[in-house]
């Protein structure tokens, strides 16, 4: 046992990094799976349908069924594809999407694991936001190369659209956060969050108020970069069959799917961090009672899940749902009983809530907005977003110059 602990002490940094990566991967993939469920459910209710409801209560086992289907389906490789690039493309898309999440910091406090402190988040880079943009910049190759390598007309069109869209919106995307970087004076995501701290007014310290133009540009450009409605021209079903992934089946298709949902999470996290104070609470620091908010949400939700579960006749509903409810409500009670734990979860609670709101907006837009026409997309990016982003940079720089002491 002592040999084991000595080994841990010597390699704590590496071991913790590997454990954190594995844990984050597991969480992100699970959240991805349930994000598809959430999206189908929400869009269905917006369109007066039920959405998935056959597999498990509320269709909760649908993601598992979908996952099994992806794994077991036949995986044909079309004739005439460029084999190497055809296999490389989904790999590239997924790997880059998962890498980008590693840079997101999830909470302010450090966690002490057997005598070694570790932060919530895989890496804490000085150039965090730049590194994220670097990874997004490479992300387009997954889509573009998939379109090209398939050796088929529709995917090629999808790939072409994707790269053109990427080039057009990347400028606006990067320029729109320059204002935030100017205000914070750093590229580090942690420091950007801390620069938005305002003890007296809470929410008023956030970047969203001075940087409202930047935020609008950033969010629109980011939605375009993730190829989501209303900018999903690379995979427009009504025109291009399925766009760039028409020739992909089985798990290779699933990899594109997971990559898309992972980048949705990354973009939502970035929005919260850059403009909405990240893990900061929207309330003034003097309102200490707001720290019971996580419990106040978790306990009723857990009780509702228990109540909902026992009405079901199936085993899953009768046993697993109440069990899940007990765990959720138990977590809420735990936070009340242990103030240290409660203090620790405040940051992650606020950040995750904000991420959830942005994910909902993604789904909401998909249920609401029609797709752009191609020329509209280009005109919108170059003639509206880019100038507005530049104006925002000039305004912010001028304001900083005027307010600086000398």
């Amino acid at each position: 046992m002592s040999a084991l602990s000595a080994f841990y002490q010597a390699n704590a940094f590496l071991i913790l990094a590997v454990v954190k990566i594995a844990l984050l991967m597991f969480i992100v993939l699970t959240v991805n799976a349930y994000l598809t469920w959430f999206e189908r459910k929400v869009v269905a209710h917006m369109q007066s349908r039920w959405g998935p409801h056959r597999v498990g209560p509320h269709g909760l086992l649908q993601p598992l069924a979908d996952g099994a289907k992806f794994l077991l389906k036949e995986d044909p490789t079309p004739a005439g594809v460029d084999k190497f690039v055809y296999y490389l493309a989904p790999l590239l898309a997924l790997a880059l999407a998962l890498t980008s999440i590693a840079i997101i910091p999830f909470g302010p406090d450090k966690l002490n694991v057997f005598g070694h402190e570790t932060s919530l988040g895989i890496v804490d880079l000085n150039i965090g936001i730049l590194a994220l943009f670097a990874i997004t910049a490479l992300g387009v190759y997954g889509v573009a190369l998939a379109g090209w390598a398939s050796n088929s007309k529709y995917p090629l069109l999808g790939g072409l659209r994707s790269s053109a869209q990427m080039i057009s919106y990347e400028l606006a995307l990067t320029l729109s956060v320059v204002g935030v970087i100017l205000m914070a004076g750093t590229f580090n995501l942690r420091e950007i969050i801390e620069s938005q701290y305002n003890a007296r007014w809470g929410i008023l310290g956030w970047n969203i108020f001075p940087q409202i133009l930047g935020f609008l540009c950033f969010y629109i450009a980011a939605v375009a970069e993730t190829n989501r409605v209303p900018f999903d021209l690379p995979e427009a079903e009504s025109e291009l069959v399925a766009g760039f992934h028409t020739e992909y089946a089985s798990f290779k298709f699933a990899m594109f799917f997971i990559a898309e949902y992972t980048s949705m999470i990354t973009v939502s996290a970035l929005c919260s961090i850059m403009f909405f104070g990240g893990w900061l609470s929207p309330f003034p620091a003097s309102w200490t009672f707001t720290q019971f908010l996580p419990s106040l949400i978790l306990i009723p939700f857990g009780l509702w899940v228990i109540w909902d579960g026992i009405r079901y006749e199936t085993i899953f509903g009768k046993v697993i749902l109440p069990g899940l409810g007990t765990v959720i409500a138990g977590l809420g009670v735990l936070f009340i009983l242990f103030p240290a734990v409660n203090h620790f979860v405040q940051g992650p609670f606020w950040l995750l809530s904000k991420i959830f709101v942005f994910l909902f907006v993604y789904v909401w837009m998909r249920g609401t907005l029609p797709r752009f026409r191609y020329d509209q997309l280009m005109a919108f990016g170059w003639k509206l977003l880019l100038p507005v982003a530049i104006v925002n940079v000039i305004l912010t720089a001028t304001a900083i110059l005027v307010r600086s002491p000398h």
Partner: protein
Amino acid sequence: MSLSLILFFLLATLAVIGAVSLILQRHPIHSALSLIVVMVALAGLYLLLGAEFVAAVQIIVYGGAIMVLFVFVIMLLNAAAEERTDISKIANSGLILPLVAVLTAFLGVTIARGTEFMQAAARAPGQGLVLADTRALSHMLFTDFVYPFELTSFLILVAILGAVVLAQRENQ
């Protein structure tokens, strides 16, 4: 061998393999992909030198924007694999070996002198090239090197205008 040395050799090998593959590949897309590998490997090397800002910009600008444009144009033109021809006339004329020798010697001398210069700069305290810090880099860019910097932007603007003029001519 330290970790940074191992990483250096890995990235350097990757860059050289990418560069060789760039020339040897017959399909333009494969060549473009090799070039992306070179760009990313170079960014890794910058990162090893502690120039994180330059590394990130290398990937964003070269690995991302410019190479996406390359791939886009290749896809748009639907360029097919090129055909092998006889070796070029310069290579056949017997000049190739002396030329390679001269180039290698030139490169060797340049690298040796560069290394000397860098070592001298590192030895002099306070006078070294401190480019690692983004703040220091941008300060330098906008004070000491502001004229070359602005001149470069002007040059790029002229190139963009030229492209616009060329594109406009066909419409008329």
